[in-house]
């Protein structure tokens, strides 16, 4: 396959996880109109939850990852009910800005909460499965394949859920027209809470299945947060299908710059490319109209 093949494989493995992160971020933006800067902290929680399930409670890999996802869902639900729901009841004025600040606060609290409870040392596992498989000229750790497989399965299930089930359709309807959705009987509060929980769950899944590659520590969420924002800015906000493609594009950009210019350059190059794209297409590659809130 040669170098090109290697780049492609690495890019896809990386991009799959970005897509998973970006999907949740995009969902919350599209449905709730919240620019969530605490998304990375749910990735962090996912890693910790998986760590404790796997090492302390000696559960298997799959149960650990699933438990991490469920716990993060629960934390997401609590955060939504405790913070965004009361804010939404009180005022919708300056919603985008207020919730943005609120998510920054949530991020700081979760980071420091993690530090307080679990200290700032790294908590990692050496591997979930061990071993490698060879793809072309490369040896790829099984754990990377596992993470990618989880990302693909989660994205596939999630997309099916959104498109084929009644509840999924209700979530989409709220993102398109809140009044219309409530007129047909959709309970907006329930959908908002569910959406936020699901978004947290997707982030936690990513953190949990990457645990052998990046150990858990309190501020580990920052990097994946930025990566998922790259993706959203690149493809346009609140567009779910595009954020999946966008994840792969960012993965590819990073991998190419990594191979061509060496480690450390990948963020510079991919950001530069994103800036250039935005200069040409300010709404992102797939952005048609401005996001519904951009004008507010």
């Amino acid at each position, binding site marked *: 396959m040669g170098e090109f093949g290697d780049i492609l494989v690495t890019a896809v493995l990386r991009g799959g996880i970005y897509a998973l992160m970006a999907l949740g971020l995009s969902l919350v933006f599209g449905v709730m109109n919240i620019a969530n800067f605490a998304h990375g902290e749910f990735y962090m929680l996912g890693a910790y939850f998986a760590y404790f399930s796997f090492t302390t409670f000696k559960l298997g890999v799959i149960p650990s990852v699933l438990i991490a996802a469920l716990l993060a869902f629960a934390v997401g639900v609590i955060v939504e009910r405790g913070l965004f729901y009361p804010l939404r009841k009180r005022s919708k004025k300056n919603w985008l800005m207020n919730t943005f600040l609120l998510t920054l606060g949530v991020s700081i609290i979760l980071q420091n909460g993690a530090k307080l409870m679990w200290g700032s040392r790294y908590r990692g596992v050496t591997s979930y499965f061990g071993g490698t498989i060879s793809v072309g000229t490369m040896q790829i750790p099984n754990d990377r394949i596992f993470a990618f497989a989880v990302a693909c399965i989660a994205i596939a299930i999630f997309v099916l859920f959104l498109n084929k089930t009644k509840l999924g359709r209700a979530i*989409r309807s709220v993102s*398109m027209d809140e*009044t219309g959705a*409530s*007129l*047909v009987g*959709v*309970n907006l509060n329930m959908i908002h809470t569910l959406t936020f929980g699901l978004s947290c769950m997707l982030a936690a899944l990513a953190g949990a299945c990457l645990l052998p590659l990046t150990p858990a520590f309190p501020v580990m969420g920052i990097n994946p947060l930025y990566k998922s924002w790259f993706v959203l800015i690149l493809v346009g906000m609140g567009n779910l299908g595009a954020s999946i493609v966008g994840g792969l594009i960012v993965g590819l950009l990073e991998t190419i710059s990594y191979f061509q210019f060496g480690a450390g350059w990948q963020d510079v190059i991919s950001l530069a490319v994103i800036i250039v794209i935005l200069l040409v297409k300010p709404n992102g590659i797939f952005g048609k109209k401005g996001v519904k809130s951009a004008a507010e």
Partner: protein
Amino acid sequence: MLELQNLNVGYGYLQVVWDVSLKIHQGEVVAILGLNGAGKTTTLKTIAGVLTPKSGKILFNGQDITGLPTCQLVKLGLSFIPEERNLFTAMTVRENLLMGAYILKDNAEVKRNLDYVLELFPRLAERSKQLAGTMSGGERQMLAIGRGLMSKPKMVMLDEPSMGLSPKNVLVVFDAVKKLREEKVTVVIVEQNVNTTLSVADRAYVMEQGRIAMEGSSEELAKDDHVRKMYLGIA
């Protein structure tokens, strides 16, 4: 079936609906007429729970529904079809209709209602896979009405259903209203198309500057000098 008691509604400090009381009985078709800005839409939105009144009471089938969230009213059998339509633009026509039946649990019933709506508006059947956002204005209006009927409501409130429709489709919409009347569904209709509306409505209220100025049977109002001059354009 529906009763408003001394309803006052406004936007911020600006009050636009003043002391409105009215009564609508089971199976009636009642029109609300009025010039632009009279407060008709505001009244309907308040009944549907989209707006909260400053004071006053709304009773539906004897139950106080003032301040109840919109999503619960559908379950009581009250469907509001707004003039803004509020369609789900990135969904297909079929998905929009299915969303209209969101509160129904029984799939067979959903299917029955879908067939019913598609028969009422055959145009929607031809376009079932098209995205709602790409439909023409008139088609979207029919879709909005169709979606509002998917839950088989006991009472339907239509805000300017014939707006933007070609004459032929205005007939389609009014035929739908007649059909609802035959099925003993209560209908409240706001229209600028006063002539046609009075021909299908049993009774009408006339709103002027946020108040109920007149009420009466359609025949009475159609003969009234004031109504003829202001709303029918006949001197």
